[in-house]
């Protein structure tokens, strides 16, 4: 529980952070520290330098920008979970941020850290993927944007390069009347999801106009349940159709087995939770 030796610098700006990352091999950004520090204490992560961006408070914001909501990378889960703008235009994400860990964790953990960490068991990345979010990244050659669907590449791996800083997350506003749900299945309140399912549905007199369904912890990255989505296209918003579509949940997934659940059980859960998510989303 004692980390290996490391250097420490506090960045005064994003640009300085980018520069510091470039000057050291194995340098790492430190935001809320609730993913990185546990790994360092177990000596599973051994960065040579920590570049602390935790106090860049100008990256802690939620603002409306036309059809999208932009969230600064350092916005805390606890703030997002109670943010009125977010609840109004993107209640799924606000709700999911409130499902992360416990109050202590949520007061430290940042949305940027959650996304950059690339843990397939994390909840906010699934919500962002389901919402077709776009990630804003600053690197040595300037700023670029990456759609969530091409951001997550593998377990703890993302599109971020060694010198990249994630600065913001952009989420499209949901049309009013859009239904949503996040089904987080876990044993204890504090636990990560054994399986999680995010759903967003738009309906059009008794039929589904659009459905987006995302899966947490069903593979090496957050996934879209595309089999379910296509089965739902234009389907009737009725229990049988939802249940039938939910059977497609496991398509394209590769869940792991661990001490909490086998892959087989995760597969079953994904179907049950997709059905429940769709039912709840339609009831909203």
């Amino acid at each position, binding site marked *: *529980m004692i980390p290996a*030796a490391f250097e420490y610098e506090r960045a005064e700006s994003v640009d300085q952070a980018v520069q510091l990352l470039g000057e050291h091999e194995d340098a790492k950004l430190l935001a809320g520290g609730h993913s990185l520090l546990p790994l360092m204490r*177990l000596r599973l992560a051994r960065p040579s330098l920590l570049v602390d961006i935790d106090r860049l408070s100008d990256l802690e914001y939620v603002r409306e920008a036309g059809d999208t909501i932009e969230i600064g990378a350092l916005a805390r889960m606890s703030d997002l979970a109670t943010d009125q703008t977010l609840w109004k235009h993107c209640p799924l994400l606000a709700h999911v941020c409130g499902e992360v860990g416990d109050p202590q964790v949520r007061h430290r953990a940042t949305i940027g850290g959650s996304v950059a960490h690339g843990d397939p068991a994390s909840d906010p990345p699934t919500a962002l993927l389901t919402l077709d979010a776009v990630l804003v990244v600053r690197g040595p050659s300037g700023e670029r944007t990456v759609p969530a669907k091409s951001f997550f590449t593998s377990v703890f791996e993302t599109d971020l390069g060694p010198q990249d800083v994630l600065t913001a997350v952009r989420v499209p506003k949901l049309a009013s009347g859009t239904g949503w749900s996040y089904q987080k*299945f876990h044993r*204890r309140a504090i636990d990560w999801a054994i399986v999680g399912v995010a759903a967003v549905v738009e309906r059009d007199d008794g039929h589904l106009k659009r459905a987006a369904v995302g899966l947490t912890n069903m593979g090496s990255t957050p996934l879209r349940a595309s089999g379910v989505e296509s089965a739902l296209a234009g389907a009737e918003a009725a229990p049988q159709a939802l249940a039938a579509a939910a059977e497609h949940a496991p398509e394209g997934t590769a869940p792991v087995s661990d001490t*909490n659940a*086998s892959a087989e*059980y995760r597969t079953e859960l994904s179907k049950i939770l997709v059905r429940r998510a769709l039912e709840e989303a339609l009831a909203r």
Partner: protein
Amino acid sequence: MAQVKERYVGQSVKRKEDAELITGQGRYTEDISIPGMLWMSVVRSPFANARIRSVDLSKARVMDGVVAAFSGKDLAGDWAAPMLMAWPVTEDIKNPPHWPLTQDIARYQGDGVAVVVAESRAAAADAAEAVEVDYEPLDPAVDMEAAIADGAPLVHEDIGTNKSYTWTLTNGDPDKVFADAPVVVKERYVIQRQIPNAIEPRAVLVQPSPAQGEFTMWSATQIPHIVRVAMTITTGIPESKLRIIAPKVGGGFGSKLQVYPEEALCLALAKRLGRAVKWVETRSENYLATHHGRDQIQEIEFAADEDGKIRGYRCRILTNMGAYLMIITPGTPLLGAFLYCGPYGGEAYHVEFTGVFTNTTPTDAYRGAGRPEATYAVERTMDALARRVGKDPVEIRRINFIPPFTEPTPSPGGLTLDSGNYAATLDRALELAGYEDLRKEQRARREQGTVKQIGIGFSTYLEMCGLAPSRVLSALRYAAGGWDAATVRLLPTGKVVVIVGTTPHGQSHVTTFAQIVADDLGVPVDDVEVLYGDTQLAPLGMDTYGSRSLAVGGVAVHRAAQKVVAKVRKIAAHELEVAEEDLEYEGGRFAVKGAPDRAKTVGELGFSAWTAHNLPDGLEPGVEETAVYDAQNFVFPYGAHICAVEVDTETGKVDVLKYVAVDDVGTIINPQVVDGQVVGGVVQGIAEALYEQAVYDENGQLLTSSMTNYEIPAAPDVPEIAVGRSETPSTTNELGVKGVGETGTIASPPAVVNAVIDALSPLGVTDIGRPMSPERVWRTIRDAKEGGAR
């Protein structure tokens, strides 16, 4: 000295301990530092079974801040004897030596192989990582049943077997009873291994005084007195030169009822280096190197009449010792050996325990120690019997309870029970639970076929605690006594100091013992100071475990206070110029019979004893009395627990809807403290039923190695526990008290499991393993449905 009229016993006096703890001023071992102090770090085997070919310390020794580094072989000469095992349960028990550091073979993942000592904690951790050990991995024995099969790898080659002992107990003629009985039910249960998680990990600090050859050890332990004896045996340092202090200790649950290698290592290193040495366990080390609990495979049978009245009990138990026998490893399961009949009658009884070595962390006492395992087997089998003879779980229990008694009464397990009215606690629990309404709701949901089904489970338990009558311990081959001691000192200004040999680490002794003394001496509870946890301050003591502090130590406190009253009575008679028999004593005041205004208080008499100006001839000045109490029998708490669960029949997730605990723990000193113990214990038992399990893979690697996947529930995960009670004074001691530290963990697991089985009974489910994780429940449901379809 202030006079008080009220009695404190029976009242929820606020805990005197809390202000200090809540404001963060409690000093734990880690908070104590000594100038020049060094830090120790232990190099632990990553393998479950491996020969140590060599240990290379050269890189570690030259690192910045490193003072010394030693292998097991380097320190071999520092030990006068191996670590103490105090409970050789049979004459022919196999007890291979357990050295503070292993020298030849590492026998479990976490076994200590080398130590480094450095100027800082970080330097010690870095240096430990730089130690290079050349291991030759060997096949491990991990699974208990596989470990006793022919050809299994041996944990200790030289003893030629993985069986440590077989212990049996027989009452009556079980073979005949079982042969004659019209009904026999036979069940098999697996009690999973658990990892104790005290909020404060272990910690040790040793300060040497080289010129005097003295050593002071601070340790996060439940048992400073036992640690002192054990350390003398292992290190050869004379007991008179050793002082052990248990400062604030943040919980133990039995895991600190232990004498650990790190205590011996810190002592040996402090002696070698002539400097203070400190070690603080990390949580990861806690998982590997602090002893584990439970871990049994049980086969249990009841013989009964057609109507379910039990005639006899029989069981065979395999119990996992882990890699070494620690202080009471082999005896721990036997603390339940007399309880495989619960509070029920019968004429025959047989139990057989086989202790098995495996390449896993040693096991030892964990809250309830042996009794949760016994209660689980009995309460599950009660339900199996009920199903067999077509009776309701309430009815089967009622017809089998030993009828109410207030005089000592024998049990099938061979115990002499102190007092009991078992049916009364069950009646009260049914009432508190709203049993009829729960059954109604259950029927309604079954008819509607809802996804979430309800189940109701019972556990009507009996336990024995208050460890322990020394003569009984002798008969059980335990190497020490079970008495305890207290000293009550009257100070000249009327305040009272009580020094106790029990060692609290969360049990509220400071409050409850003060309540007892305040009543005995008629003084305000705030005038009574309770001191503990230091072998120099309290030389006589046997410490805190097995729900013994009140039932043994509390009685010593009361007796010492009574001795104080007896002494000052002499002074009162002298000063008031009457015979002792002519005095009436009440509320701290001695008054002359018939002349109530002629009186002296205990406080005034204490002052007289201190000035010694006018004492009766031959009476020594001062008032300080010590009592040592050795109980003649155990105490036997009991009760009825009812659990209602809701099972999601699609996902397998179980939620506890309602939990009712009605316990009889004899006379109650402080109701709030009792409620706290019950609620905490029940939560731990719910965790055992639903959440916690130590999982090893086939190579002996601990997979549940952190709080991330070793599931300990927290406040949002457990329901409000409804607590009720009855109060039947124990006949074992004059306070009428029984223990309450373990009842919750002993009673609750079968109530929860029986409830889940009840919920799933329409599917034909009669058994489920534990912990009842969602996946396990889901598989049980699926298998039942597939079985039904076949």
